[in-house]
């Protein structure tokens, strides 16, 4: 797994954790009957004074569709991002790793190698540069050197699906079937849901005459990662070797369908190279901008982080992890209107993830938009009526705004799903608060 991906994942986890903390420490987490509660007064009257929406203004114009930028301008923007990172954070190995990735994308392999070297000087236990270097060495045909670099990642304790995949390929490139199989078998054991590992293992098993195992793993790869030209064509070959010609022909027909669906540049106004290059550069730019954003976040440079995460979203608005990272950065800047906007988009991208809906409700309540909080949770319940998280939150929300009947209703639903001591305690507190507020239990 690349450094960038690690940064992204770290960012996402931290974001989720912090937003989770927001959930815990802001309205819903408070002891609804506590004197110190910020939401319920001693006499039970709600601390949230009004149900009128108080949505704060937004400052961001967030892209909802992919921005198209001229190739040269995008290349220049990437160079500039690399410059900003290395000048702003010269002592952070991540900045040099990002700069190396930019240079690598722009075919400046000597510079890329130099920057990865610098990154490792600053932080020798940084996995990303090793992966980048391994890829660079592979492109030069230095497969043995690439293997040694990847081994270094393992020595440093790095163990991701991507490392196993690359190590397996590096061994394969040297003709070392046994070692390659070992790397991929271990990878699949550790990361059984990674379709690329399964595909890699299936391919190699075919080469070592383990045809039934190959068939099984290729089919699993397709089930997990979807059909692709690679998986289908490899599977067709394995099926033929297993003398399953009819099934192989069916797979081939499916492959033809996929191939026909793939767009062809023929007849278009731009060269196929340009289209392919633009697509590849766009993907790389997304990764790099996202990495810049996460690096800036780690360095607590929130406005800069915001700039790069928004830029990453411009490259690909469909990746929820960047939106989550951005929500966190915005939260740090108390840009609640923007946070809400971002969380709403996250809910579009991940409609079944209840945590995001609860987070939205939390922030909405924080800014006094009770209606939005309620609607977010109501919407969540429609999607998953059995979400205990949503029911707990909804119970607390209703209690916080003094709507104890609804709070009791919600906690009753919760009781049907979970009658643990914690839930019983919550029920007791709601009833106590309701009594204090003069709405005794029925």
């Amino acid at each position, binding site marked *: 797994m690349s450094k960038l991906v690690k940064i992204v994942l770290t960012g996402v986890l931290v974001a989720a954790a912090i937003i989770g903390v927001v959930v815990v420490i802001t309205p819903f987490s408070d002891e609804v009957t506590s004197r110190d509660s910020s939401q319920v007064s001693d006499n039970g009257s709600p601390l949230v004074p009004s149900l009128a929406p108080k949505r704060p203004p937004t400052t961001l114009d967030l892209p909802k569709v992919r921005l198209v930028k001229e190739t040269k301008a995008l290349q220049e923007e990437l160079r500039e991002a690399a410059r900003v990172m290395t000048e702003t954070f010269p002592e952070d190995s991540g900045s040099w790793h990002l700069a190396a990735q930019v240079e690598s994308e722009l075919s400046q392999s000597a510079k890329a190698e130099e920057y990865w070297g610098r990154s490792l000087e600053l932080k020798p236990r940084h996995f990303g540069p090793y992966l980048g270097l391994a890829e660079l060495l592979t492109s030069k045909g230095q497969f043995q050197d690439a293997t040694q670099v990847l081994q270094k990642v393992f020595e440093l304790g790095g163990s991701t699906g991507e490392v196993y995949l690359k190590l397996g390929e590096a061994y394969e490139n040297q003709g070392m079937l046994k070692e390659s199989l070992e790397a991929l078998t271990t990878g699949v054991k550790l990361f059984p849901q990674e379709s690329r590992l399964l595909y890699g293992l299936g*391919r190699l098993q075919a*080469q070592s005459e383990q045809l039934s195992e190959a068939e099984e793993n290729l089919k699993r790869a397709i089930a997990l990662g979807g059909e692709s030209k690679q998986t289908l064509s490899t599977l*067709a070959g394995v099926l033929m070797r297993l003398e399953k010609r009819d099934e192989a022909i069916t797979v081939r027909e499916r492959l033809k369908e996929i191939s026909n669906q793939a767009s*062809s540049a023929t007849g278009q*106004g731009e060269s196929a*190279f340009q289209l392919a290059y633009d697509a590849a550069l766009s993907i790389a730019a997304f990764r790099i901008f996202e990495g810049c954003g996460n690096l800036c976040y780690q360095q607590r440079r929130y406005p800069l982080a915001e700039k790069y995460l928004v830029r990453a979203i411009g490259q690909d608005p469909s990746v929820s992890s960047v939106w989550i990272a951005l929500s966190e950065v915005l939260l740090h800047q108390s840009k609640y209107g923007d946070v809400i906007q971002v969380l709403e988009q996250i809910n579009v991208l991940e409609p079944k993830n209840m945590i995001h809906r609860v987070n939205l409700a939390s922030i909405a309540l924080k800014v006094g938009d009770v209606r939005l909080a309620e609607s977010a949770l109501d919407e969540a319940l429609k999607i998953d009526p059995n979400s205990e998280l949503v029911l707990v939150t909804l119970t607390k929300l209703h209690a916080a705004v003094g709507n104890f009947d609804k709070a009791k209703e919600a906690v009753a639903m919760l009781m049907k799903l979970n009658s643990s001591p914690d839930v019983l305690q919550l029920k007791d507190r709601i009833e106590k608060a309701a009594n204090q507020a003069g709405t005794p239990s029925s």
Partner: protein
Amino acid sequence: MTKCLFFVVSMIAMVLSFWLRSGDGEPTHPSTIQFTDVTESSKILFRHHDGGVGERFLPEHMGAGLCSFDADNDGLIDVYLLNGAPLLGAKINPPPSNQFFRNVGDFQFRNFTVPSGLQDHSYSLGVTAADFDNDGFQDLYVSNFGKNCLFKNSGDGTFEDVTQIAGVADGDKFGAGVTFLDVDGDGLLDLFVGNYVNFSFERHRQLAPSAHPYSPGPKDYAPTPDTLFRNNGDGTFSDISKQSGISSVAGPSMGVVAGDFDFDQDCDIFVACDGAPNLLYVNNGKGEFTEEAILAGVAIDSRGIANGSMGVDSADLNGDGLADLLVTSYSQQQPEFFRNLSPGGIFEDYSRLSRIGTEVYPHVNWGVGTFDFDSDGDIDAFICNGHLLENAKEIEPQTDFGVPNTVMENIGNTKFRSVTANSGEALRQARSSRGAAFDDFDADGRIDAVILNCDSEAQALRNSNQNGNSWLILDLVSTSANRDAIGAKVWVHSNGKKLYLERINGRGYQSHYGKRLHFGLGQLKKIDRIEVLWPGTQHFHTVIENVSANQIKTIVEGL
């Protein structure tokens, strides 16, 4: 005493053999493969012109193929090199033409282009040779960017352009690899013509700005279906592309090779495709083909990628008695080594595990020859390298326009090692090579090479290895099927070892070579048995026993 001595010597040899191998099984002893550049002394003085004026039209990158064949039946292999022609806006004075070099012995050639009538000024790309009219003389077919040409060998040292009469101009297309083969076993050689893409100068100019720093490539144009001509036996051909199934698919075809890849006693056709899945036309013996590359496992590489395949050669690379395929590829792709799996016809790409492509991985590769260059009894590989763009270094720093060619030595167990660095000065020259032809040009039993370099001078490389290994070269003449015996299978048995070769046609990068079959025999001085399975529907066999090594032997079917 003698037995005891023999035992001791054998044991020492065995220990040495193990000792000389490194930890991972790779021999540490130096390769004996040696090539010497004899271009100047050979007088194969040829310069290829790409015909461009800097606009980088697609044909400019292609270079061309070449053909080695015995044009005058004097037992010496001659060479015909293809050339470009001025493209739109270009002027070259004098205009380039294809060149014919007649072998006069001892690796000496004379330019006989004008006397032979082979001075063609077309923009030529691919070539093959065979005796299509069974008159005993090798004819030539040339694919062009434009109309193709069929040159009939008159038998008196001259050739006659019979394209119009034969009806094989194949329109006005962007030609590629071509091959003669007998599709229906009637004894007459038919003609397969690979076609590349539907290039146009207008579209190039439209796309060129957005393709920078590359230039518009094969994916920017619709692929053109290939063509199959049936030999009518009267000097004319009929286009049977549709009824044979050949035109049912279209790919950006480049190198082609015809051979019996599924071992069912008819000729199939493999077509290397540039940036698209390769094609395998499987013959049902009646001249009807179905395209089965995906099912046969030769459409894509082991990673599931459709490579930028360029050239192809076929031989038994792993000694299992089945014809494998070696397909050259674009940069950062390994050449595909399609290992033919028993009982034949289903392949797997074994390139990475065999290490055959480790050295050429960073480079674009084109011409390819699979021969036993050190005559030690297994098949090695010669691969031609060089990027198609002169500014390659700027955009793909790991490679360049000019790159040395590569020699991979077969070290057994389906493994290869690079011996380029130790194979002589000739292998250290950086050129942008395209087609290559491999034959024994000096009749010394060692396979030499002639390399066509894009927009540059050709090279003649003499195989100068001094290992003293034995060899056998067979020239086959069929009397019941096509005279060239295309499709014949030969097994050479000696000392418990069996070597296999098939008489194939149309090889490498849009080239043709190797009509005579070369077998490396190591230290053996005698062959126990030669077995020939002749082409055609009657499946005649010839068996010859107790044959001396180190000779060029002609085997005539039925004699």
